[in-house]
């Protein structure tokens, strides 16, 4: 078993936040006596990530995903639990550690606004002390992978959001980090641009064996890149394992699509979600799927039949709602 790249044991981050009622009286009182609430942004989570793994970090807004990424990249001191990333304690922010990681945040702007991205890449070279031949090789490889040969020569201010994001990603990976923390890297981008960035991350991981921890609200990102997912909610870890297992455990239904030439009463097999032009979509309890599929094939004139898991968004929603119900 190789040494884990990321090792997190009982990691927590608590914030003390001043609170008061509305109004002048409460404001005056708070001048003399402040009341605080403790917010558990991350509450004793533990996991390990092996070299080369691409892990999806899922949770609703405010779940603690970004806080965790910030603790792992060294931007935040944990309240408890000392995470280990590449054998370093991130909060010490040693130069040797920082040279091996990157944190890409979808809403952060790192490039010089008025200059072509090529100039900003040059600055990245100097910041990370990348030898020039290696820098040029990496830069040109990334430019080709993302197909941005002409864009890198335009001032960044003249680029679209998606084009800028491509430049941001190139800039963030020029030093070929071994660990990538990607926080919503495709936020606000159109489907084509999302797909481009997704395949770039996949290719980077394949070529460099890098470890990736990714948060995204776009499940397509997670499905395409991550075999394993970690789900957190209200700072607590709800699930850590294969995406397939998550789907298995939390999806109570499957969808059966049938293309048929015949006419029949489809309600006998399950809930009919849609029926048009010889195509029927049914929702079937998960455990009954094999039996119902066999019956349909035996009893109906079937031209085509598909069995699908429900959209991953629905599954994740179910994980959260189940957890909330348990909390009550």
């Amino acid at each position: 078993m190789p040494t884990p790249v990321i090792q997190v044991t009982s990691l927590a981050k608590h914030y003390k936040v001043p609170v008061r009622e509305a109004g002048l009286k409460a404001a005056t009182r708070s001048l003399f006596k402040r009341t605080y609430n403790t917010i558990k942004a991350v509450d004793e989570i533990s996991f390990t990530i092996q070299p080369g793994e691409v892990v999806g970090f899922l949770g609703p807004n405010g779940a603690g995903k970004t806080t965790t990424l910030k603790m792992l990249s060294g931007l935040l001191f944990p309240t408890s639990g000392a995470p280990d990333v590449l054998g370093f304690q991130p909060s010490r922010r040693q130069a040797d550690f920082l040279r091996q990681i990157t944190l890409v945040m979808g809403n952060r702007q790192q490039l010089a606004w008025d200059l072509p991205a090529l100039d900003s890449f040059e600055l990245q070279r100097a910041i990370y002390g990348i030898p020039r031949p290696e820098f040029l090789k990496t830069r040109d490889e990334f430019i080709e992978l993302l197909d941005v040969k002409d864009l890198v020569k335009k001032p960044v201010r003249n680029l679209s959001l998606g084009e800028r994001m491509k430049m941001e990603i190139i800039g963030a990976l020029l030093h070929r980090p071994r660990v990538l923390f990607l926080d919503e890297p495709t936020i606000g981008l159109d489907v084509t641009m999302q797909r481009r960035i997704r395949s770039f991350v996949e290719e980077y991981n394949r070529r460099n064996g890098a470890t990736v921890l990714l948060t995204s609200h776009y499940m397509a990102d997670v499905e395409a890149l991550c075999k394993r997912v970690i789900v957190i909610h209200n700072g607590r870890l709800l699930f850590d394992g294969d995406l397939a297992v998550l789907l298995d455990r939390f999806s109570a239904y499957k969808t059966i699509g049938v293309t048929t030439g015949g006419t029949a009463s489809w309600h006998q097999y399950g809930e009919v979600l849609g029926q048009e032009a010889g195509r029927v979509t049914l929702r079937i309890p998960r455990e009954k799927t094999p039996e119902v599929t066999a019956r349909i094939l035996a009893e109906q004139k079937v031209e085509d039949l598909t069995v699908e898991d429900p959209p991953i968004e629905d599954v994740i929603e179910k994980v959260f709602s189940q957890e909330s119900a348990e909390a009550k």
Partner: protein
Amino acid sequence: MKRHVDFYLTNMKIALLSQFQYRAQNYFYMIGMVAEPVIYLVVWSTVARQQGGTVGGYTAGGLAAYYIVWTLVRNMNIVFTPYGWEERIQRGQLSAELLRPIHPLHGDVAYFAGWKFVVIVLWLPIAAILALIFRPVLHPTWLQVLVFFLSIWGAYLIRTMLLALLGMIAFWTTRVGAIYELYFALELILSGRLVPMTLMPAGVQNAANFLPFQWTFFFPINALVGQPTTAELLTGLGMQALWILAGVLLVNLVWHFGIRRFSSVGN
């Protein structure tokens, strides 16, 4: 060391490229800045003429030289402001800088140093026009020119440290503006920015000796336009070096505690 030199040169190049994009804005800003020394110059030249030609040892031509050189020194003194620190800390831009394997202050020093080269090029025509109008009188020796050149960079570094210290207060409070205004008032009186220090009362001059401000304005200007002795010139450079060193130590100390707070609260 080699890595730092490369970083500084590249960052300075980026600053040059960026600021030449803003050449018109830079120019208007510099022209606007000329109003302040011209007012001082007109007032003190009038006083000098009414006092028989000199005031505090300065002739009208000497005062013209003082305030024209002032315009360059003032531009050399522009550094990353406390307002910039406030924004950087509160809006979380600092987070991105902390992820780099180099202290953010190196980036500030390098970037503004690169900008200075743009400033110097843009300043030359302004200085020429002011010289045509106000007829400055100055006869510097080569040593004075050399010391002046070194001291404007010393002034730049001292002020960088001072304003970084002020700016880092934003780690603890959300408003550093008020403290910056107080600093600004002290600097105006104790630096030679308002009037040459030799025109100030003896008490103010004594107090200024123990403070960093005059080494950022009066010393560089006087090094070029006054008649300082060699010992005074070298002592001045030494004082600048001491204040830079003290500034670096203090900045590191405040940074150490400030960054702990930033990392506890986050942004």
